[in-house]
């Protein structure tokens, strides 16, 4: 693989919300580089800040929230120089500097689009499906009504709506949950964005429909070449979609690496805990591992490692000083004192040793549940 291009680079982003005379720090100095064409998954419990963080990329923070520090550089696709015909790096835009809605035009929706969890709330129930797709196309491209309609129908069939032309004039309630989510995806992709943020896109859907939607996003990504950010709390979904994974806790990314790094060689105690509590790894008759306590309150200043109070094996320094990121491998970083050379040797919990072996034992080789090929 050639040198990876960065499409978006967040540096030391801090987000604060004003809540009843108080300030809540939802995101605490998070940095992230997003490479072109990859799928980056962000996992974490509710309240860890995974949605808030990605909302800063599209300027969709609630009105009481503000980015108080850091920069988010959006580079987008490289341009071709009209005179020399060479590929020229895009100088990039700092998304933090965009304030007014007008500034966001041309970025939000056009370059960076979002698919939300609940398709029923992202669609307007009293307007036809077709008109809602056409609206977006007309907004971002200067084309005639007829052309917009053609594009919309084309997009609908691309996301797997059968008889798209006939269903163009139907209303959201006439669509099933999975079909509605397909429409939301069609709308998001209708202006050919460079980054697609999927915020729990399948949490409200059935497993079988979830599998279809995940496959659809994957296929479209291959075809259209956009970069995907996938927000989810389901580690199974992460394993399925992600090239790289970031684990979020208490408003910070505490560990990131390739999917293989995170699942087979996790380093942060929070990642250990998260993986250990998977019901799939449970042994019948024994208790499942679970994380005690509650996530930290973001109103207070967090001292040390934010996970320390819930970590039974926390080191003393975890309560005093915040750990920096330690590099584990070229792709793998973790924010835990355990990686400091002075730290005691601590093995990951027994349950998640040989994760691949354990899962394979359950599902058969290749995870096929031994289905015949016929």
């Amino acid at each position, binding site marked *: 693989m050639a040198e990876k291009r960065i499409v978006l680079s967040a540096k030391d982003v801090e987000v604060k919300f004003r809540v009843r005379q108080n300030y809540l720090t939802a995101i605490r100095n998070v940095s992230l580089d997003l490479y072109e064409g990859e799928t980056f998954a962000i996992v974490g419990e509710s309240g860890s800040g995974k949605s808030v963080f990605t909302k800063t990329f599209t300027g969709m923070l609630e009105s009481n929230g503000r980015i108080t520090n850091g920069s988010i550089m959006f580079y987008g696709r490289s341009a071709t120089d009209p005179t020399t015909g060479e590929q020229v790096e895009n100088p990039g835009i700092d998304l933090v500097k965009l304030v007014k809605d007008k500034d966001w035009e041309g970025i939000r929706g056009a370059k960076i689009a979002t698919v939300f969890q609940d398709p029923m709330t992202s669609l307007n129930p009293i307007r036809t499906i077709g008109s809602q797709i056409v609206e977006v196309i007309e907004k971002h491209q200067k084309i005639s009504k007829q052309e917009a309609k053609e594009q919309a129908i084309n997009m609908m069939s691309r996301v797997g709506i059968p008889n798209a032309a006939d269903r163009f004039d139907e209303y959201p309630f006439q669509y099933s949950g999975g079909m509605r989510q397909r429409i939301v995806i069609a709308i998001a992709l209708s202006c050919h964005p460079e980054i697609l943020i999927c915020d729990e896109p399948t949490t409200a859907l059935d*497993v079988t429909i979830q599998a279809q939607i995940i496959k659809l996003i994957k296929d479209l990504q291959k075809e259209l070449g956009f970069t995907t950010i996938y927000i989810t709390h389901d580690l199974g979904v992460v394993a399925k979609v992600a090239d790289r994974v970031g684990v979020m806790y208490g408003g910070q990314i505490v560990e990131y690496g390739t999917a293989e790094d995170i699942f087979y060689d996790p380093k942060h105690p929070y990642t250990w805990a998260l993986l250990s509590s998977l019901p799939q790894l449970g042994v019948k008759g024994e208790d499942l591992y679970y994380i005690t306590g509650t996530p930290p309150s973001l109103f207070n200043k967090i001292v040390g490692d934010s996970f320390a109070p819930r970590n039974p094996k926390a080191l003393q320094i975890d309560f005093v000083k915040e750990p920096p990121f330690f590099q584990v491998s070229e792709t793998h970083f973790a924010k835990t004192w355990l990686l400091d050379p002075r730290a005691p040797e601590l093995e990951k919990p027994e349950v998640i040793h040989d994760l691949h072996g354990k899962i394979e034992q359950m599902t058969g080789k290749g995870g096929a549940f031994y289905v015949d090929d016929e």
Partner: protein
Amino acid sequence: MSTTNNEREVILSVRHVDVAFDVGGKKKFKAVSDANFDIYRGETFALVGESGSGKTTLGRAVIRINPCTAGEILFNGERISGKISKQQDRNVIRNIQMIFQDPAASLNERATIEYCISEGLYNFHLYKDNEDRIAKVDKALEDVGLLPEHKSRYPHEFSGGQRQRVGIARAMIMEPQFIIADEPISALDVSIRAQVLNLMNKLKKEKNLTYLFIAHDLSVVRFIADRIAVIHLGKIVEIAESEDLFKYPVHPYTISLLSAVPMPDPIIEKNRDSIVYNKEEDDPNAAPREMREIRPGHFVYANDEDMVAFEKRLEKLESYHAE
């Protein structure tokens, strides 16, 4: 540790139950058809299917919310479906309790936790005096890992996991024999799911409860259930002991469901595709199907023709596992 069926006591017997809804005019929509199974005392029986499969409808038929249009349901040997006496009706409500999916929606947000939990006691006068009632509430809270001082709080002051505990306490205080848990962990965070599953297992052991666990996620059910029934479009297509179902799935729908659940393993997930099950491919002229035993305690919905294919698949699976 498998015991043969005849040694065990049946607590709930669902016999050829249909549940149909009127959908305007004379049309009826059969949400559940010919459900037929027994649940033994002390086991966790899981009912798994997608939304619209009829799993919740069947659960609600057991607790008499949806009337059965055919067949009958027996609880401890007594019929509890159709017309029954008022005394029996109260008996059912008392002994069969439900835990719901969304703990926020199932608690009265304007009532204190004390009231939410006591509600059943009030309805059935299951307390001597006020002191006794409070003692019972405290005990129920303690059982689910909450503190007695929590009882003056309101539901919104709790986290999702705690609220689900309140939902469980509310069911437990009635000292039921049988609990229907309808997707009790689907709305919860990963880390809290484990806590609630552990709690349900602990209470089951302590109080010798029987669970009907309704879920859509097969991988979760594997951990908690003793036996699993897979339901598709109102028909139960396969019933087996939980390990058996994972090892020897024979019905194509079960296999498709297994393949759809993403496993937390990137190597496996990136190399497999989910298998789509298309019911429309079924030949409408096929011979009628019924539940047939393919292995001891393992039933599948099939006709003669299907059985040939299923047995072939089973043979392959058995030889695979024998290796």
